[in-house]
């Protein structure tokens, strides 16, 4: 998430907005956002339905704990998923994709 925060000015430049989604509760997310100095919105999705919608399940690497895998999704202004990647965010890949989308006029 810090990586996304560091890239905020570039996301603005490419007309993109970041939203984080987590199965943590609102109070936890508030403290977390404060500790990392995050300025973009974090959504608390306790039931995990958004994760299911985007194909995110419990992490196979951490068994026995309700830790969900990470996924990065880019949605364009028409609501179409244009990019999806499991695991650690590829920040450079995301920026290149957003720059290309912005150039094409398909603002995220």
């Amino acid at each position: 998430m810090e990586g996304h925060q560091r890239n905020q000015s570039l996301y603005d430049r490419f007309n993109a907005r970041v939203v984080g989604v987590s199965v943590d509760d609102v109070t936890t997310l508030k403290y977390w956002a404060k500790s990392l100095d995050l300025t973009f919105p974090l959504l608390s999705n306790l039931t995990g339905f958004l994760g299911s919608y985007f194909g995110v399940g419990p992490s196979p690497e951490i068994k026995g704990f309700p830790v969900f895998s990470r996924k990065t999704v880019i949605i364009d202004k028409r609501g179409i998923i244009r990019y999806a990647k499991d695991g650690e965010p590829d920040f450079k890949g995301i920026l290149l994709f957003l720059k290309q989308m912005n150039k094409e006029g398909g603002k995220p």
Partner: protein
Amino acid sequence: MKKRWVLVLIAVMVLGLWLSGCATTEAPKKPYRMSPQGTVIWNDEFEFKPPPSAWKIIQVEVGGEFGFGFLKADRGPFPSQSMFVYDEEPFGCSTELGERGGEFFKRYLWSTAMIADMKILEKKNVSVLGGEGLAVVAEGKDSVKKEKVQSKVVFGKRGDRVVAFYLTQWRPMDGTYDPSAFEVFDQFWGSFRYLKKSFYETIAQDP
């Protein structure tokens, strides 16, 4: 009978050689080369003076906390070792050096595996990467594990983003720090320069 065994042996050897040929993989390409001046050219992007040979290269290629650096096993019992790295994405988000220092040390404690308070021993402005920088020396002690760590972190700028160099030296609680590692580290960041613009500087340019 003997002839048949020799033939079988030759067949096995040929098969073995063929299979080993299939299993051969290309050696990974080194990320650096030496310049005629004796400096290290890293990925055609960075140039710096190499540390002595006792320092071994370490790097994280995917999803790591730092880019690359050097590690040295020191004399003495565990955890006697020193490590310094160049980090393009140091902890924190601020583009102001002082603020970034504060953000960095909130999480650096975890990174050094020291469950203890980290105290700032020294903080001063320095010149790094051809511009203004901030050097911070800190120490953390873990009375449960009976270990301690001393770190020097130098924050600088690449374009409008903050980068960092940091040395971490781990010791048992009664161990003594090795100042020569800090001298090697100072040479590293003092000689460090960029050979081209960063990804972030390039992508920010139009079109």
